[in-house]
């Protein structure tokens, strides 16, 4: 433990307790260490994000330069009152929830295997990470091509109908999209969980075995709680990314059969229609929804801002 004195919240707020040199140095060091990263992040995104928000309250279409002007929340009303938007939200939530759940379970299994395999560990770890390293668009295309009734091999498999039109119906399309997403990003979960597993002291398991705990008990009482930090980072970022799914859907159905996600809607307005106002409004709304999800994670699952020394495990 660092030897800085612990300060109660009240004392901090009141500011009445004299600040020791050490605390001041610590603060300065802390801010200094954070500064480069903060600058790097703000430099690039401050202007674009503010610009996007400003655009979202304007009526602006690149193809019609003579129009334009402040329109308040009109764009937002347009989006929120559109049936397409809510269907997109539903689709996105559906894909996110299902794929992240599957990835969580599969990722956990993979992490355990990668950690405990009695042989072939290097091979397994490398093989598991390859899907994550394949260029996203190409992976989506490979899945699409595989399931296409004409040129793919899936329909030639024994249990599958020869002319099943996977992308001709809504839920079979979702099935393939989710499979592709799960295949591609389970390694992300598995990697983070593996690193988390690696930090757990073996001694705890041995002690538990001596005490007569079963494998399941060891898993739920030792592994899971100690994995919490890694688990939460993995879940948080994976959910945020899943919510912005674009490539798989775009390549496989183009959004047809009612499989559109909110990102595809945003792309259509912003890039196809060049309606910068509407497109920016969609982006801001996506951002707000993702923000809500992040806040929920932080609040309910305690992916807390780590407080440094004195924090409970």
């Amino acid at each position: 433990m660092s030897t800085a004195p612990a300060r109660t919240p009240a004392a901090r707020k009141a500011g009445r307790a004299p600040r020791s040199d050490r605390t001041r140095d610590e603060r300065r060091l802390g801010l200094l260490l954070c500064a480069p990263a903060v600058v790097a992040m703000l430099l690039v995104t401050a202007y674009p994000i503010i610009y996007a928000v400003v655009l979202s309250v304007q009526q602006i279409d690149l193809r019609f330069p003579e129009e334009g002007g402040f329109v308040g929340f009109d764009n937002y009303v347009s989006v929120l009152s559109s049936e397409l938007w809510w269907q997109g939200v539903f689709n996105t939530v559906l894909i996110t929830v299902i794929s992240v759940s599957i990835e969580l379970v599969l990722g956990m299994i993979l992490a355990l295997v990668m950690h405990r395999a009695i042989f072939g560990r290097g091979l397994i770890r490398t093989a598991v990470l390859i899907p994550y390293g394949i260029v996203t668009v190409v992976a989506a295309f490979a899945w699409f091509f595989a399931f296409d009734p004409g040129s793919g091999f899936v329909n030639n498999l024994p249990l599958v109908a020869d002319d099943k039109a996977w992308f001709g119906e809504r839920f079979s399309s979702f099935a393939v999209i989710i499979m592709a997403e799960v295949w591609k990003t389970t390694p992300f979960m598995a990697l983070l969980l593996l690193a988390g597993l690696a930090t757990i002291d073996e001694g705890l398991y041995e002690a538990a075995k001596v005490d007569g705990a079963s494998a399941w008990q060891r898993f739920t009482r030792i592994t899971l709680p100690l994995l919490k930090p890694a688990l939460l980072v993995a879940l948080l970022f994976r959910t945020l990314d899943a919510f912005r799914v674009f490539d798989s859907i775009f390549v496989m159905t183009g959004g047809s059969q009612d499989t559109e996600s909110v990102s595809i809607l945003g792309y259509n307005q912003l890039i196809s229609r060049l309606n910068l106002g509407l497109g920016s409004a969609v982006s801001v709304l996506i951002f707000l929804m993702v923000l809500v999800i992040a806040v929920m994670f932080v609040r309910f699952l305690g992916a807390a801002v780590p407080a440094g020394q004195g924090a409970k495990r």
Partner: protein
Amino acid sequence: MAHSSRERTLWTIGLVAILAFALVPVLWLVSLSLKTPATVGDGSFVPKDVTLDNYTALFEGGFDSPLLRPLINSMLIAMIATVIAVTLASFTAYAIARLDFPGKSLVLGGALAIAMFPPISVVGPLFDMWRALGLYDTYPGLIIPYLTFALPLAIYTLVAFFREIPWELEQAAQVDGATPYQAFRKVILPLAAPGVFTAAILVFIFAWNDFVFAITLTSSDASRTVPAALAFFQGESQFTAPTGSIAAAAVLVTVPIIVFVLIFQRRIVAGLTSGAVKG
């Protein structure tokens, strides 16, 4: 440690299943890359007519070939972005995990907010900014956005791991006679390694795979990376998809990833030595 043959069998079955899950689509890509244009659509998993033309075509033209410059660009840009991102994130994560200063939640929350904003809205203004600043179609032009969007993930990962490090070990080692540097190197670094290498892999793959920034902020082989270069591949005609060559390119560019991961996967679990924590 002796394992019963039953155990070995179970493990073998499990490993084969996992390998199949991970590699069947990759093998499908390999298969597509080996097919001739005449058979690419025949629906069979194993190519009936094998050709290496897709691969040789990728390197035709030496330095100007469709894949060589983009591959070099991808590797360099991803590596530079990874090194810088992990370094900056380590500083930040160390500060957040160990030190007490105001604005911690702001940094973490802000980082998260930045990672959440849809990139497609950001690339437009970024394009304008970069053209004005002369960063368009350059290495820094891509490295900087990659830094920005990878830092949040790297910071959160490292914070999660740094929180778990028993920092008191550093002091214990010093009490035992080690210099601060030795204590840091022999005790803290190995404990930090899993987190650092995990973050490195994640950042590298993020930069490697990105398409949106690459296609918008580059315009020539001077800085174009592989995902963007794939968009320029042509088939035999305007309407023919260059399936074979794209599959071949995708397979080839996975090789550096495999190498990278093979090197680093051992590091991730090299972590704890059994004596460190018990003391």
